[in-house]
């Protein structure tokens, strides 16, 4: 019974048109990133937008290609909150990077 249910769930998430749509969306977002790189935007704003687009792309890959959307919620809750927490902890130091140029002698 459970095998049958799991197969049905897998089949539900494994439709080829869905994969194709995700692939096209990823290509479009990549194209948008390349176009953005040639706009005269301040570094930090550019960095924020590019990271935002990358997170959307990563979420699409994890959810559909890596099938996490169709896995049990407990798997997501076990794996991802601590990963996101650790990455956010790293970002604490980014403030130093912004202050450093102004602290150089003669700046």
């Amino acid at each position, binding site marked *: 019974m*459970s095998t049958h249910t*799991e197969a049905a769930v*897998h*089949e539900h998430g*494994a439709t*080829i048109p869905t*994969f*194709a749509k995700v*692939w096209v969306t*990823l*290509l479009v977002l*990549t194209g948008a*990133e*390349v176009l*953005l*790189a*040639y706009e*005269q935007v301040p*570094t*930090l704003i*550019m*960095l924020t937008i*590019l*990271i935002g*687009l*990358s997170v959307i*792309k*990563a979420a699409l*890959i*994890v959810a*559909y*290609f*890596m*099938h996490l959307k169709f*896995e*049990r919620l*407990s*798997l997501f809750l*076990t*794996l*991802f909150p*601590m*990963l996101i927490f*650790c*990455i956010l902890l*790293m*970002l604490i*130091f*980014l403030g*130093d*990077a*912004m202050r*450093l*140029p102004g602290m150089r002698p003669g700046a």
Partner: protein
Amino acid sequence: MSSQVSAVASTSHWEGGRSPYATNSKKFGMWLFIISDSLTFSAMLFVYTYCRVATPNWPTPFHFSPSIIFSSIMTFCLLTSSLTMVMAVHAMNQGNRKAAAGWILGTMAAGAAFVVLHLNEWMNLINNEHITAFGNEFGVPLFGGTFFALTGLHMTHVAIGLIYLGIVGQAVVRGKFKAEDVEVAGLYWHFVDLVWMFIFPLVYLMSAKI
């Protein structure tokens, strides 16, 4: 009373016989590896970004042609290889081993194209822009150090993925591996693709020569 207790015990998560994640151990093991490897790449990407923001005269050696064009094609190769990998898993779930082997071969071809283009891009930087891992004409040696470490580690992952897929592909042809084994290999390959989704904008596009 005792039958009630035994009924409760048999359904307890701590008594075994139940899978809290409804997944097999190979897949769960690969997920754990992916999370730990994500932290490695996150730290390296953070170091690159830190240096980029903290250095006002950070080099921008990536000309539209060939660097940005090449890296965009490399992104296309990896995204397409993810699609073919998904198709391989789908074919295995349908029990079609021949189609699965074909899709895996397609994935390997796209991955190999990525490596060739990436090596070409490296050679362009080394020979034409005179950037190495230890120094460059811009006077910011951290650029080469962080760039080659990050992209080199990623390329190593792609190369290992090609070997992994080769082993899985030939086992599929010989009727040895099951669908879940192909799915686990697919998880690794998608992760390699996922990491590039951050390297491409943060490394190449943030240092594009405008």
